[in-house]
């Protein structure tokens, strides 16, 4: 992926759609833009991979069976392939925990004990219209997932070593799917926008102007990040 292609994001003809699409962008496992459909699809993948670990489904069947069209298999399946030992990771937001489909999927993964599935929730407490607990309260999330038959881990989402050990711990859980609730601070590192839901999905240059004018937002934020909020000096204008 050439870096300059990033400038085509959300533009006509780009592989980089406003919400990523599997059939346009190489490397994507699936299309899951609409909230709530990610966990369900990931659960389906985990279920199918587990079936494969017991049965090599790609083997053509007995004489008279349908021939496998390998070209189509390549086009229509992601690069997961058959075989055991593969895991499915699903990254979710917290706002989409309000979708019914999320809980249908949580129920499904819990029932079938999809231990090859690890979900990660970015628990940053904001969504488009406000704070999650004001828009439609989600808590107690950990208890809810436990009640649905999941192994629940909670980590500081900015603590990378802690996150890595949570991911490793999930691999050791053999009887349940695991969810890692990663508590994060939206806009972390730029004090002026931290915790502010108005910056949800908004790029620098498009946000509210109570601190910086739009034209100054990008530079202002970079300055703050590079100086660690003014605690160290830096050479950038």
């Amino acid at each position, binding site marked *: 992926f050439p870096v300059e292609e990033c400038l085509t994001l959300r533009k006509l003809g780009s592989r980089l759609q406003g919400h990523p699409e599997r059939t346009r962008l190489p490397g994507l496992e699936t299309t899951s833009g609409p909230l709530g459909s990610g966990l*369900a699809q990931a659960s389906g*993948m985990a279920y199918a991979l587990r079936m494969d670990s017991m049965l090599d489904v790609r083997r053509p069947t007995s004489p008279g069976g349908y021939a496998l069209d390998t070209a189509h298999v390549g086009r229509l399946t992601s690069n997961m392939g058959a075989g055991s030992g593969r895991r499915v990771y699903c990254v979710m937001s917290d706002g989409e925990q309000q979708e019914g489909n999320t809980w*249908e999927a949580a*129920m499904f993964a819990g029932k079938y004990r999809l231990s090859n599935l690890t979900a990660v929730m970015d628990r940053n407490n904001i969504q488009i219209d406000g704070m999650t607990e004001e828009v439609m309260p989600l808590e107690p999330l950990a208890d809810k997932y436990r009640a649905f038959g999941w192994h629940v881990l909670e980590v500081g989402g900015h603590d990378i070593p802690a996150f890595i050990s949570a991911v490793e711990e999930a691999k050791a859980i053999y009887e349940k799917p695991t969810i890692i609730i990663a508590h994060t601070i939206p806009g972390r590192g730029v004090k002026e926008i931290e915790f502010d839901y108005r910056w949800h999905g908004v790029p620098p240059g498009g946000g509210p102007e109570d601190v910086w004018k739009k034209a100054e937002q990008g530079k202002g934020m970079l300055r703050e990040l590079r100086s660690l909020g003014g605690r160290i000096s830096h050479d950038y204008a």
Partner: protein
Amino acid sequence: MPEEAAQLSANLLADDIEKKTTRDGFGIGIIEAGRADERIVVLCADLKESTRAEVFEKAFPERFVEMGVAEQNMAAVAAGMALAGKIPFITSYAAFSPGRNYEQIRTTIALNEANVKVCGMHAGVSVGPDGATHQMLEDIGMMRMLPNMIVINPGDAEEARKAVVAAALHTGPVYLRFGRAPTPVFTTPGTPFSIGKALMVWDSKAPVVAILSTGALTHEALLAAHVLAEGGVESLVLHCPSVKPLDEEDIIAVAKRAHRIVTVEEHQIAGGFGSAVAELLSERHPVSLKRLGINDRFGQSGEPCELLTHYGLDAVHIIAAAKSLLV
């Protein structure tokens, strides 16, 4: 005359023609497809008896997945399974799948080009006593609007069997529509079926009206053609199980021969099969057209045959519609 090439039932116009439900045809077809291809899995939303998914469960328990009453999840889970190499058939009542899970079908199956077969059972008013909530009349419209989606509405149990096998062999999303009530089995194992093809089931030397029908109502269309012939009106009946892709060339050809067309379907007139025919002909060969279907109303409880009469979809109404075009 019944079209010879269609190899229809010898009992075609008799009262004692064998009756069977198209969902039973699904049950037979899915076993056939499942035996031939180990990638096929069946997902079920707490309706395994009435959808006939239980037949597959008995034959291939390890490839049957009970989803509970969660149709949205069923569609998206199936998409995930398809991307991992399976060929999922998802089964529920059409009112709920695709009725309730349209967005999941749109995004995770159609846009995503996931190899999932959506099987909508108990479609149409002929569900009967269950009433309007369970009588799906908008599914063909919803599904045929989706890019990448094939839409098949089989005419009888035998054709339903063939449609399931054909859907399994087709790579990509397919919507299959099935009914609850037993209906005449007018085709035979020798009757041709392929996705995208219409089937001439009744023809005359000089037809003055063509009846285009989809689903089980094609048998009513055949009865109507027979009565019309006895009254000296020559007609033809083109059976169109493949609503999308539509057999455009065959439909234009019959429009050119008969100049008048009646369409018949157990679905809302708006957006359904008749709409598809109207869209095609108004652009490429406009002719007089009368569309029979449910006219911007919901269904209600009743016996299947009562309802078909009440909503004007039986042979009597098809005859009247054909005659109205001849005036």
